[in-house]
């Protein structure tokens, strides 16, 4: 896990939703009988806008759904998909669970580590790639698989991964 274990205490600057995102936030809020239920959708809007959930974004989300900041921090850290620190443009998430492991994800992950010179949870110096081991992605029949951001790539091997990385600028 690459999540911080304690909540950042330094005063975060005030952020506001850009107009387009404000519409998404209001749409999300309209789906539930209370604001609290919108905490995950609104955290997603923040991550879509800024690429990660910064302390300032956390503060904004808390204000938007009317919850204390530590509560939103506790929720954001419970789930694995919110980036509480910046990630690269291409977030390589390699499935390591059994089906993919039998089909070679361990070797694939080592290959990526060697090729990119980074380990689990790390980002290349140019900000292009972040590499992570993840648990089952529901693509077991296409193992080994990985998600790059939200895109699925299945039946991978070293050559396919190399060709893919070339395309991800």
């Amino acid at each position: 896990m690459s999540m911080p274990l304690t909540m950042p205490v330094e005063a975060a600057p005030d952020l506001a939703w850009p107009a387009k995102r404000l519409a998404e936030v209001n749409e999300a809020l309209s789906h539930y009988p209370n604001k609290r239920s919108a905490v995950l959708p609104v955290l997603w809007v923040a991550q879509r806008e800024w690429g990660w959930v910064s302390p300032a974004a956390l503060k904004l989300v808390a204000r938007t759904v009317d919850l204390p900041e530590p509560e939103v921090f506790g929720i954001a850290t419970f789930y694995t998909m919110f980036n509480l620190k910046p990630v690269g443009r291409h977030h390589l998430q390699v499935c390591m669970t059994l089906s993919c492991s039998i089909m070679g994800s361990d070797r694939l992950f080592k290959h990526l580590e060697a090729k990119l010179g980074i380990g689990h949870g790390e980002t290349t110096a140019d900000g292009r790639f972040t590499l992570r081991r993840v648990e089952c992605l529901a693509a077991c029949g296409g193992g080994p698989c990985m998600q790059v951001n939200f895109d699925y790539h299945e039946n991978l091997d070293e050559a396919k991964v190399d060709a893919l990385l070339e395309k991800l600028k």
Partner: protein
Amino acid sequence: MSTPRGPLLFADIDTPNLVSIDTYRRGGGYQVPGDVLGKKQPDEVIEIVKASGLRGRGGAGFPTGMKWGFVPKQSPKPKYLVCNADESEPGTFKDRELMEKNPHLLIEGMLLSAYAFGAHTGYIYLRGEFEYIQRILDRAIDEARAAGFLGDDVLKTGFGFQLYTHLGAGAYICGEETALLSSLEGYRGQPRLKPPFPAVEGLYSCPTVVNNTETLMNVPHILKHGAQWFRQWGTEKSPGTKILSVSGPVKRPGNYEVSMGLPLSKLLNEQCGGMRDGMKVKAVIPGGSSVPLLPASMLDTGLDFESMVAAGTLLGSGGVIVIDDQTCIVDALWNITRFYEHESCGKCTPCREGTYWMSEVFERLEAGHGREKDIDLLYDVSDNILGKSFCALGDAAAMPVMGAIKHFREEFEHHVTHKRCLVNRRRGAFEEATA
């Protein structure tokens, strides 16, 4: 039309552009609501689904009509229908294909199910990784609303049903229904005590039904053709079809829809084309990583709820994981145990601590430092999680390990006596087998 891949849910799954409401309706979609809403009593709908014998396809196999029947008829509180589309059970990837290709069948199934017990709001809870499926479903929901199948007055019958998608954010535990509801309410996704069951006190403490995606997709077919028609497939106690997700080194992995009761060996040898060349099957996990494995000698077991229980395992979610003879069973179970250790929500001690200690013992065995008593210790720790944890996640971590020790004890012992695996530890079957 493309060749049908299965008798029911997969009959038209590969129709080009089935995601569009026009294509879906040309194939007969959305006819049932017009014949049911305002024309059949909700109780009649529940009775038909009860008579069909439809059982939950998410893992537990609970009778769907009975679950709906638990919802109080007279309730001052609103009622909710929640589709469990979290699909996080390792080995399972059926709902992903169903929703990706046929989103309107889910919407139609939810509309009819909501009518049966009087829910006016529905949510589809998707695992966080399914963002692209959320986009497909949201588009389909917009189309259905524009065509009058969703909204305050569906088909001008006076019945209202609003439907929304909700994206999780990466937590296996949210597939457990009460954890899912906590997550949907905006809390950490941790399970709640049952009873009260969701049918009485679920989402926002209101009566709620949580059904799996595949279960809900069977509903329009059952209401269209009747309970007896549905029973032409499957067994007396497990009627209908089941979609099995097959993974591992078989020639043709993927999703297969079969009549329940089909022997597992037939699925693997005929539909999946058998093992990749030069490989033999050692064991198969038939229902997702939470269930005990079956050794190769037991592959004639039928793919239905009862036969799997009789064989000491479960049909579960239908995630069929094939383990080949060169994969180390101890290593495979360590992989599964690490998964549960990672995904334990931390709420209860047996699961949180137990999965950690199991993982430690596995690491010791695999590193060649295993002690003679470690195998019994592993069994003992599992036994102290089983039935003693807050929710089924603990059981899911314990059962596969206990099953593996039962069937492959000599492979565990080999790690202790020889300080190495019984087989050549070779992860990465694709290295040799892709040719």
